[in-house]
């Protein structure tokens, strides 16, 4: 009897699942009459990165469709988005089959999204097998772009929209470091700032550690120590007190995982007499202030967005996104958003939906995106530099995220940029 009941439960659940699928599958079947361009938005939809992929793409698709759609020759096409949950943070094979299904069963013509590099590599191969344009909005691994150079004919359908690749992220964070050292020299008369390097124990941290130790002395600064905390560390008081003992004036950071929160919170609580600058991905998020119990002020991190007008597309996107979704957009959301606009321009220039022709036009892209003047380099990667995409430096001041860099760097200052502020306890310590 118990077995019969159990079987009935299983049958009921399966029935409910398929019923829910039946109700919710509107938009999955290809609509025959309307002219549509199907774009698969691929990301880990149960996590914030995937959610942002979807929210950014949805916003762009709606804006473009409301404005009339995409003109291909003399026909008007609309964007139709396919939400593809890659589950890439848990399983790479899941991600690859999800995208393959999107292409073969759901008839996606273009793909945008992804975050995890291993999954991006697997999805890249799937997309290239089917010769579908794949625009990355999350993975920064430079190897993805190298493939375009190594085997152009196969990999030419791959493009990166965001972020700037790993090497450029490191390079730009070093610019932030120099910026801060200048402030210390001018305001606090510290001629040779001492720098403590704190890079989480991850591969990107390894590369940065090697580079920083070589490069920082050439900026007229002294490296006083290297700390490698675990990406899942919840207590960094040991590292912070050691840093205080070393007499460091600057803490140069790389945090891409959760440990960025306890780091900043304890740095603020202990009032370590050193400024904090570098990359702290947690500090890019809206919830950072709450997560650090209000102690995260003055944390200074490289970012894709800040409340500044990088181009005239930035603030409308930034503000509308916050209005619609209640949180700051990340480079995942901006990536998928920009990818749909860049794709639109390329399709319209090509006048056809032929992938090869669109690739040629994509390579000629030169337009304002939300992150700057957007041009692809020869490896189909984001071109970085003054006048192009530079990224921004954002600092938390009075519980709000503001943009403080570039502030005159190479003559560039985005409207809305404010002055960098030294934490008051640091000023006190070195007066």
């Amino acid at each position, binding site marked *: 009897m*118990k*077995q019969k009941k*159990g*079987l009935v*439960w*299983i049958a009921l*659940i*399966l029935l409910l*699942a*398929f019923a*829910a*699928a039946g109700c*919710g*599958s509107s938009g*999955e079947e290809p609509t025959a009459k309307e002219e549509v361009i199907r774009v698969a938005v691929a990301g880990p*939809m*149960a996590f914030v990165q995937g959610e942002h992929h979807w929210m950014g793409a949805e916003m762009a698709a709606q804006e473009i469709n409301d404005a009339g759609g995409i003109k291909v020759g003399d026909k008007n096409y609309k964007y139709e988005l396919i*939400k593809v*949950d890659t589950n890439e943070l*848990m*399983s*790479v*094979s899941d991600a*690859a*089959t*999800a995208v*393959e*299904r999107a*292409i*073969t*069963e759901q008839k996606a013509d273009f793909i945008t999204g992804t975050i995890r*590099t*291993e999954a991006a*590599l*697997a999805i890249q*191969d799937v997309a290239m097998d089917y010769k579908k344009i794949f625009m990355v909005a999350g993975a920064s*691994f430079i*190897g993805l772009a190298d*493939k375009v150079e190594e085997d152009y004919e196969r990999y030419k359908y791959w493009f990166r929209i965001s972020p700037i690749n790993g090497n450029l992220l490191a390079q730009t964070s070093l610019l932030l470091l120099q910026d801060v050292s200048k402030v210390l020299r001018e305001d606090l008369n510290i001629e040779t700032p001492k720098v403590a390097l704190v890079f989480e124990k*991850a*591969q990107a941290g*390894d590369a940065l550690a090697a580079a920083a130790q070589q490069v920082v002395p050439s900026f007229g600064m002294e490296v006083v120590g290297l700390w490698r905390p675990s990406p899942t560390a919840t207590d960094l008081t040991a590292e912070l007190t050691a840093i205080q003992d070393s007499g460091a004036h600057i803490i140069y950071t790389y945090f891409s995982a959760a440990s960025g929160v306890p780091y900043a919170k304890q740095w603020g609580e202990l009032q370590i007499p050193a400024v904090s600058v570098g990359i702290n991905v947690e500090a890019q998020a809206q919830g950072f202030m709450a997560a650090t119990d209000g102690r995260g002020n003055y944390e200074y991190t490289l970012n894709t967005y800040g409340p500044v007008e990088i181009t005239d597309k930035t603030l409308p996107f930034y503000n509308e996104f916050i209005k619609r979704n209640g949180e700051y957009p990340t480079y995942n959301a901006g990536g998928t958003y920009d990818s749909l606009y860049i794709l639109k321009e390329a399709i319209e220039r090509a006048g056809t939906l032929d992938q090869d022709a669109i690739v040629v036009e994509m390579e000629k892209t030169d337009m304002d995106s939300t992150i700057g003047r957007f041009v692809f380099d020869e490896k189909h990667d984001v071109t970085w530099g003054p006048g192009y995409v530079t990224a921004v430096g954002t600092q938390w001041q009075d519980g709000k995220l503001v943009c403080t860099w570039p502030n005159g760097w190479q003559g560039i200052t985005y409207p809305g940029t404010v002055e960098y502020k030294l934490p008051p306890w640091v000023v006190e310590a070195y007066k």
Partner: protein
Amino acid sequence: MTGYLYHLYQAFKEEILFLPSRLIALVGIIALVLLPLFSQSPYTLKVFTLASIFAILAASWDLLSGFVGQLNLGHALFFGVAAYTSALLNLHYGLSPWMTIPLGALMAVVTGMLVGIPALRLRGQYLSLATLAFPLILTGIIYVFPDFTGGELGVSGLSRLSNSRLADYYITVGLALGLGFLMWKITDSKIGLIFHAIREDEIAVRAAGINTTKYKLLAFAFSGFFAGISGGLYAHVMRLAGPSTLDVFMSFQPIIWTAFGGIATIYGAIIGVYLLYPFMEVLRIVPEYRMLIFAVIIILVLRIMPQGLSPWVIERIQKECPRCKRHNAFTRKTCKACGTSLEKPSLGGDSFKLEVKTSE
């Protein structure tokens, strides 16, 4: 010639057609072989290709943990070692998959030995915890030598397994069925008997004079070999080998599939994968609830069928003869081999009469 064929046919009739479970298995095998006739969609073929690879992995886990009772919570170690070995040999030395996969499997065997020798000093839960640690250790080592191993990002750009999706499909399905059959035969042999005995009562086996450590190491070796084959196949089908192959999720998947399909049966593991893996793909129509439904189904099945799906089904379609232990179809009334009645005796009715004689 005809005599031989006739005997073959008789054997076929006796062993396969006779038992409903084997008939179902035969139908399943034919369905797998003929699947491409019904659907040449590359997506469907890819799903079943991956299912075949994971079927080999699950069966290899069952061989070690189901049969020998050494609960291995770090089976991904063999999978990952072989995937990385195949990948690195392919990338740096240009060896073809036909060479890299067996070499990867051999590397997994060596790893199994290296891991087994210290681990087998432990018993029960302690062995399981130790096995859990090994893939994590290897992941750490991989991160320490990123130039050689690709670090967190893995090794990519590998050769394909074969030139077409269809050929991939047949290679993996063929290997899954072939290696699965081989594993099943191992469990059915004298070695298998010892494995089984070790699980039930290791002390008794040792008392009988058998070196159980040697046999446990043998089990690690077999299990590692077959898991290694599946790891090598995976690397060449995905064209990528990364730290995800050593993930704890990858260790737990074969356990879930095998527990669902029928533990300690080999065929249960294979059936579990071929049912659950495509089912997970079908569940993509409800992406938000996919994992949840999967978990709920597994929990429910294990509630009503604690031994797994296959033993439950077999219990219903076959009867074991009480005298000679031969399995018979459920429709039969008497055992084919010894003629004993298969009916369960019912108390009361016509079977026997109990008479009480009162003294006159």
